Structures are given as C-alpha cells and as structure tokens.
C-alpha cells in the first residue's frame, strides 16, 4: 500500500508523492527514487546515519520513531539543524506516516 507524502525540495518546490510501505524504504530513498535532489547530494553515506545529507525538517505533527544514538550524534554535528530536524534515512515508511510533510534541509557546501 502506498501513502502520500509532501516533500518540499531544496528549491522550495512542493512535491506530493506516493511512497510504498511494503518495500522496506526510508524517506531518503523515497526522495532519491523521485530524484527530488540530485544524486550525490543526498544519501551520501548510503543510509547509515553517518552523514547529514538527507537532513529534513518535519512540518507535520506525525509521531515519528525516536532518534537512535547514531542519528542524534549526527544531528549534533550537522549544520542548519532545527528542533524538527531528522535524518530522512532513519525514517522508515509506514502507514502511520500517511500525509507526512517534510522539507529538505539545504545542502552543505
């Protein structure tokens, strides 16, 4: 089953996309599958919470799984971090996330 997710890309453009819940995907991979950020600028570490290239701001009120120690540590070192920052690679796509709204954080240069 697919859920709808609203993703604002780094240029401020809003995309409403379908994300499958049955393909073991995370939010970073959804962004890459729709090519909403250029390859090589997102998911650089491959989803190990070891870079912050998939950082996003969560705009809706969804209850997300708690941050792991790895994610927490990475966000402590990342730039442009806000209270609602998360790493997309650590957000697993489940049915509970129907209607999720996120915005991609700027690319680190």
């Amino acid at each position, binding site marked *: 089953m697919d859920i709808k997710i609203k993703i604002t890309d780094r240029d401020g453009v809003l995309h409403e996309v379908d994300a499958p819940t049955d393909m073991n995907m995370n939010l970073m991979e959804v962004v890459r599958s729709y090519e909403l950020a250029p390859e090589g600028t997102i998911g*650089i570490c491959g989803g190990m919470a070891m870079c912050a290239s998939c950082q996003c701001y969560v705009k809706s009120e969804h209850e997300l799984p708690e941050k792991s120690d790895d994610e927490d540590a990475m966000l402590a070192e990342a730039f442009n971090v806000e209270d609602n920052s998360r790493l997309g690679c650590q957000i697993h796509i489940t049915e509970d996330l129907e209607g999720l709204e996120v915005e991609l954080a700027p690319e*680190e240069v």
Partner: protein
Amino acid sequence: MIKTDILIIGAGPTGLFAVFEAGLLKLKCHLIDALPQAGGQCAEIYPKKPIYDIPGFPEVLAGDLVDNLMEQIKPFQPGFTLGERADTIEKLDDGSFVVTTNKGTKHQAPIVAIAGGLGSFEPRKPQLENLAKFEDNGIAYMIKDPEVYRNKKVLIAGGGDSALDWSIFLANVASEVTLVHRRNEFRGALDSVEKVQELKNLGKINLITPAEVVDLMGEATLHTVVVEKTDSKERMAIEVDNFIPLFGLSPKLGPIADWGLDIEKNAIKVDNTLDYQTNIPGIYAIGDVNTYPGKLKLILCGFHEATLMCQSAYQRIFPDRKYVMKYTTVGGVTGFDGSKKEAPKAVVKAIN
C-alpha cells in the same frame, strides 16, 4: 617520481582488490589516498559495521574486510601514497600519465584507475561569513603540527572524538583552550569524555555548551570568535589566536572533477559494455565513483569492475600479447616478493 604500471586513485576495497587482479597479470600498482590509512569508507566511516553482501562472507566487519584485502594483496607489494590528494593529471608524449598530489608527489603510469569512491574526504566547514578570509590566518580544519599552538589561545568547536582528543592534547600546549559544542553531551570514547571533564574542573579547558560559533572578527588574521549560548542567546566575544572547527569529514569529488572526464550525477561516466574506461583512453573509473546504466554502488560490483579493468589495462600495456585467463586454483598466486601459493599437488602412487 614514483613509477608503476597501474596508478590507482583511492585505496578503498575496490582499489585494493584491483592490486590483486593486476598482480595476477604481473602488473604493479601504486595507490594514492587522501586519508592517512587504506580502506576508504570502510576504514574511515564504518569499520565496525557488518557487511552482509560480500560473496562467501555471510557477515564481515568493514574493517576486517579491509584487513583481509590488505593481506590478500601483500604478495603484490603495492606502493602507497597516503594522506595526499590526487590533484592534477598530465598526459606525456609517450601516452603515460603523471598524477601530482596536493603535496607535490609525482606518480607516473601508463594506466590510471580512479577508484575514488565518493571522492576525497574533506573537513566539513561551519557556515560562517569570513570563514575563507581567515583560513590559514588563524583557522585550520586539521592539526598537522601541534607545536604551532604552543602558548596560543585556541578555540576548538565540535563534539566528537577529534574535538575531545585535541582539546585534551592542546590543554598542555596552548596557553588557553576553549571547547565549544552545540550540546551538553559529548560523544566519544569514555576515557576522552572523562579526561575533558577533569581538565575542565582543573580550569585547563574552558568549556562552553550548549553553544555555537556565530561570528569571526579580525583584520588580516583572526582575532576574536563570537560564541552564542544556545539556550540564553547570550553572546560572548572570545579573543583567540586560532580557531579549529572539528566537524568531521565529508566526501567531495574534488579536483578529479576538473580532469576533463565526462561527469554525470557527481560520478564519472564509463563504458560498462567493455572495460570501465572513461572518455579519456587509459583512464578507468571503478567502484562507487563511476556511473553507467544500471550502476549499483556495491563493493561486490567494484570488485568485478576492477577485474575487467585490469584485463583491459593489460591489453593497453601489451597490445601484442594474448592473455589467456587462468584460474588461481590452477595457476596459484606468485607474488612479486617471491612467495608462491598453490593448490597442493595430487600424487600418483600405487598402494600395495
């Protein structure tokens, strides 16, 4: 000038395995890597993480995979230029290439294989105005010679191991050490965290948390760093001689992007129908750094690409020779160091 047959840029798993395949063809390799140790991402980013898709290894730690590869290629005596980044490439009249690193080390080879992974690891820089202005005028992202900081006022930013370790080390070298971190919690080896606590209690490290560096001031050289407390938004101007932001490393394709190679999606386009050669004959790209239709950034794919690259390199170096592939089970492995590994011979002997 370092001379070799195949100059490999990047000492990650793909580059290391290329040494083995080249060795079977009696081709010598030399590797350049910007990191101070071999292993690439496996050693730098995730040495303790398990990998499950290396054929024949149900589970292997990334660091162990690198150790195994180093063991496997040892007979072929690869040369290493570590801690230096390949910066420029030049083609000579005889068709060979000269690659020069950022430290001026020159390497010459008829074949260049770029196994650069995600690129070279560069320090992550905080986003501050004036940052570039003070680089090398008070700001450094790496500590090369700690003596530079003797009796200086130093401010370190960051919350990981390197920020902790250098704060500890410089506490006995610099006249003043200030450590600024965005959180109250530090993440590093327990020993280091406790040591920083101890030095803070002794007044040898001035710890400011949770806080961030927000501004830099000075004329020609850095003079003052402005730190803002995250909770109270209170700002304090701290006089310093040196500011060392230690926010880890992030990979950048770097100077290779300017070598005239076809680049697509931050990766080097290669011919995947044949030999992973780039648009410049004699320069190959293998592993995560390349792209072609259907590309997968997997270590196991890098191994395959390295193998085919070596065959093509052999034909370029010896256009008149015909190479017939031989199984290691049949031919064994003869190292450049004189070592020989081979399957034990069966005997033909009557049993009476």
